[in-house]
């Protein structure tokens, strides 16, 4: 886990919250996807984001990670306000915020080493890629950060050759290599076999052990309950509740989510 990328050395940890959203709204045309979201993510915590389909979970993390810009509201990164119109995926990367999407983090037909570096290749000044250097680092991530030792996966393997759990491992390993202070995981265990889920949850624990924060969106309440420090419950674009796993069991959480649906 000592692997670091010197070029992106982590910022001095002098902030209270890695990300803070204040009164964020998001409209898609006339449809309001997020209304008045105020939410803070602390420095070294795993925050579980739960809610039914259409509750706004995905929209919320897209706003948080620069994929979508909010219709109104303020965004703070490390307690400093940022201009939402200038916010983008690239900007989020620069601010050490990385996202691992369920099935949109890796390009299937491309080798792993290209997947590690695309979007921020190691190039000379003409834009030609330093392939040898990229492969060396990719190999290091593969063996040391992710721990794919002796299973036959190489930096030249394509993503299509990996299992679902291995893919999540690659994506999370990449995020850690870039020294993300916040890693956002969008349903990383969806559609995975049980054995694969265990691997992914281990990766998530590694994120916290290494002193980073994590926002974890999950359908499966048992998974998120097991590893989150705090659970944020969304319903129809609003934050309706924040609890800790100690305050509510998985069964109580399930009942609560069902009751939300019925009282809408």
């Amino acid at each position, binding site marked *: 886990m000592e692997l670091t990328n010197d070029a992106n050395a982590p910022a001095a940890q002098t902030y209270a919250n890695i990300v803070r959203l204040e009164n964020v709204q998001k409209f898609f045309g006339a449809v309001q996807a997020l209304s008045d979201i105020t939410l803070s993510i602390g420095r070294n915590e795993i925050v579980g984001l739960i809610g039914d389909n259409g509750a706004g979970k995905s929209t919320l993390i897209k706003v948080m990670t620069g994929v979508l810009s909010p219709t109104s509201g303020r965004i703070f990164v490390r307690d400093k306000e940022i201009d939402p119109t200038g916010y983008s995926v690239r900007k989020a990367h620069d601010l050490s915020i990385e996202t691992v999407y369920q099935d949109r983090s890796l*390009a299937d037909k491309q080798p792993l080493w290209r997947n590690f570096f695309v979007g921020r290749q190691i190039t000379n000044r*003409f834009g030609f890629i330093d392939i040898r250097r990229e492969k060396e680092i990719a190999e290091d991530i593969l063996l040391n950060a992710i721990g794919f030792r002796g299973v036959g996966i190489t930096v030249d393997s394509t993503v299509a050759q990996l*299992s679902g*759990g291995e893919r999540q491992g690659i994506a999370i390993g990449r995020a850690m290599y870039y020294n993300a202070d916040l890693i956002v995981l969008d349903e990383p265990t969806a559609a995975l076999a049980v054995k694969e889920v265990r691997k992914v949850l281990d990766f998530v624990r590694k994120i916290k052990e290494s002193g980073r924060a994590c926002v974890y969106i999950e359908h499966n309440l048992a998974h998120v309950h097991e590893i989150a420090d705090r659970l944020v419950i969304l319903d129809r674009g609003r934050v309706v509740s924040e609890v800790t796993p100690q305050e509510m069991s998985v069964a109580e959480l399930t009942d609560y989510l069902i009751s939300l649906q019925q009282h809408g």
Partner: protein
Amino acid sequence: MADRYSIPITRRFEGLPIIVVFFVLLGLFMYTAPQVFLAPFIYTTFLSTLPPLILLAIGLTFVIGSGEIDLSFPAIIGFSGFVFAVLFKEYELGWLAVAAGLGSGILVGFVNGVLIAKVGIPSFITTLGTQFFWFGMATVLSGGKSYALRGANETSVWQGIVGRPFAGFDGPIWLGQVPMQAFWTLIIVIFLWFIMNRHRFGEHVLFIGDSNDVSRVLGIDVDREKIKIFTLMGFLAGIAAIMLTLENKNYFGNQGQGYLLTAIASVLIGGTSIFGGRATIIGTVFGCLIIGMIEAGLVASGLTGAWVRTIQGLVFLIAIISYLYLEEPQKRAEMAARFGLKREFGRTGSAEKPPVADRQT
């Protein structure tokens, strides 16, 4: 299980299957038409006739590799060729006419790119439309006339682009027939091989072809890269137009029409994936050689010209099916299942078994 992660031989040596096919065909034609294929002149003829096809196919390799298609390049050849021919002949602008011809190709490509990336019209429809528009423009502006460029071979433009640099030298006759466009094309092909395989831009092309969504998430400016891809296509079609016009010493409006199918076929025969995400420059070049060789070889072997398109179409289909079979394990399994060759989907033996159980897709 080790072979689950191994890399197929087709990917370790770029273009390998198509290079093998090329030499088999070459051997075949040397047998059926020795008087043609064992003499040097057929090859120097290839050097002067194939460059436009190769340049178009290389541009298309980027386009198809990014999961898009361009149908408008025959019209670019018409339009850019017209711009070049009229400025070269009527206004005697020389190298400025070359620049204007290239510029018009770049412009058409750029407009295609903007319509596709920013307006969001699928490339098939966009370029179908622009194909008619620019072809029509060329016809309207030229009044349907052709331009004969008599005496063009006295000019530095002709000498520089399609001249015969070794014509006056002592040596074998075929050497004197080696044309400049072969050198230009070779330089461009090598340069674009590096761009595709070693440059940020090429990597972005392949990721976009793999998935627009993933590319956006990874921080690639998909719209801007698509505009660049189509602009590159326009630029290469512009070069092809000028080469063609100068080589024929004649401009005519539908001089590009024959290239639509042959260029697309060359790219796909070469091994670039019809689904995007995988592209090979070397494969494309050999695809062009095969397409050109079939044309010459069939006629030389005594078949009528009518057979040429038929055989090219056949080779094209066989190539696409073989690539599907070789490189897409999922498709291979589905195909086998459809023909009833496998009773149970997924039980295919370890070597070709995709990790179906825990795949997310």
